[in-house]
């Protein structure tokens, strides 16, 4: 479960870069997640290349998709950008369902290799994988926090507040938006690849828009703009998702469908409670300290 929390954390970090720092809403996370998962799965299963190559391919492929997305939506903001990016993630899912020659359609791709899978017990594999994901989360956190505190991050945060004034400040706004979108998509795509190598099986219905919604919730609860908040929020959301599983077990006389609905309900309430008391999230964004 912590592994999934880590994957959500990676995605929340990716979203924080583009939404929390640059102010561009991206509801296409599930699409970039799927892009990365399929890229890595195809590279390792069909081409038989090592997992590391798959991860790099996933990051690059998702980043390229992010750059194309940023360029095609260059004049969109707010609600319009949200809808187009959401549409993108559905397009990815539909392409994965229908381009059977490449993705094996709704059958999905199975037998995706995982590091040391089969050579160690499943428990050990889970532990190893948790460690790998933790390293990725830590690396992404370090990298993105460094970006946030740099002059580059300052420009991104300026674009978030007012992109016209940022242009007058002498910044080539579109270039920053495209880079931020690409880097963000690359991080989310890496999370997707890690997901595939963990579960060994991916299919289009694993990439429903609900993933995006959970990540957005995670970042909102953790604190938009703050990288540590993104990771904390992801832990929190996964904790809610799992703990509600136990809570609903105590409720008598519910059919499974109703149990699922009650879980969503409880997750929603928990987040409302968090945001009632911490409207800026658990870790509110703070202005980086000036250089000494």
């Amino acid at each position: 479960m912590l592994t999934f929390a880590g994957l959500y954390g990676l995605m929340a970090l990716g979203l924080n870069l583009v939404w929390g720092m640059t102010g561009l809403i991206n509801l296409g996370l599930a699409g970039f997640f799927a892009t990365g998962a399929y890229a890595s799965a195809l590279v390792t299963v069909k081409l038989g290349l090592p997992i590391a190559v798959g991860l790099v391919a996933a990051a690059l492929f998702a980043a390229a998709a992010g750059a194309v997305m940023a360029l095609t939506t260059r004049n969109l903001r707010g609600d319009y950008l949200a809808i187009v990016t959401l549409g993108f993630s559905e397009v990815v899912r539909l392409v994965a369902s229908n381009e059977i020659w490449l993705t094996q359609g709704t059958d999905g791709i199975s037998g995706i290799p995982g590091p040391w899978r089969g050579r160690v017990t499943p428990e050990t594999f889970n532990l190893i994988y948790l460690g790998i994901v933790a390293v990725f989360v830590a690396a992404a956190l370090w990298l993105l926090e460094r970006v946030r505190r740099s002059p580059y991050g300052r420009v991104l945060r300026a674009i978030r507040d007012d992109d016209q004034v940022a242009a007058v400040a002498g910044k080539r706004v579109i270039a920053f938006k495209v880079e931020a979108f690409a880097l963000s998509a690359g991080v989310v795509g890496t999370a997707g690849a890690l997901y595939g190598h963990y579960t060994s099986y991916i299919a289009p219905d694993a990439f429903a828009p609900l993933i995006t919604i959970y990540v957005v919730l995670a970042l909102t609860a953790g604190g938009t703009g703050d990288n540590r908040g993104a990771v904390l929020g992801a832990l929190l959301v996964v904790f809610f998702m799992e703990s509600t599983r136990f809570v609903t077990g105590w409720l008598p006389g519910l059919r499974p469908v109703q149990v699922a609905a009650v879980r969503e309900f409880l997750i929603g309430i928990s987040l409302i409670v968090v945001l009632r008391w911490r409207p800026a999230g658990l870790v509110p964004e703070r202005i980086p300290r000036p250089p000494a």
Partner: protein
Amino acid sequence: MPALLAVRGLARSFYGVCALDGVDLTVERGTITGLIGPNGAGKTTLFHCVSGLLPPEAGTVVFDGEDVTGWRADRITRRGLVRTFQIARGFPRLSVRENLMLYGADQPGERLAAAVARGAAARRREAELSERAVAIAKRLNLTRVLDAAASDVSTGQKKLLELGRALMTDPKLVLLDEPIAGVNPTLAAEIVEHLAALRRDGITFLVIEHHLDVIARLCAPVVVMADGRRLAEGRFAEIAADERVQAAYMGRRAWRS
């Protein structure tokens, strides 16, 4: 020497509403040129078109001997022409210091790879910009609020910050959109002093303002716009005596200054 800024026949409309209808405007080096006119005359649209935020539909903008018509705003700023905003727009979630430093040009740390590497060049430039920001803040009396979020400072301080950000770009020409609107008379006088001093330092200004007493004291020449065109130009006393200007802007009653 040719004029620092020469605008010829600039036109721009919004969905059929003609905001600029062939404006001609010249700003000579070393002046504080005033730009006045009734609301809706097209003054701010003119600023948008000159600073590159809106592409004009016709006409040319020549700045410092170079045709900059239709350039992107960031290029125009780097060329030495920077504008400020009417309602103190800016970056509320950045500190005052960051607001200033952001306007500094040539920061290698604004490239992604360099930002992650945190190289020596970026750190050196950051130190320079920081020093410059501190100096400008000191000059504009913003030192106390340097590390406050820009959303938390007073309206007057926002106006000063607006000016300070423009100065960070090391400009030749600054377009000021109502620099003293809504500030108290003491601070307004202070801002006027700053502008006069900066002009002596070699910066040219084009100022939109509705406080005519300030325009009279500070600006020469004064350009009057109405209905998207230049109506008149001259020293303030001449302008004020012009009947067309009185009709368009000041009302029918005879103007007495």
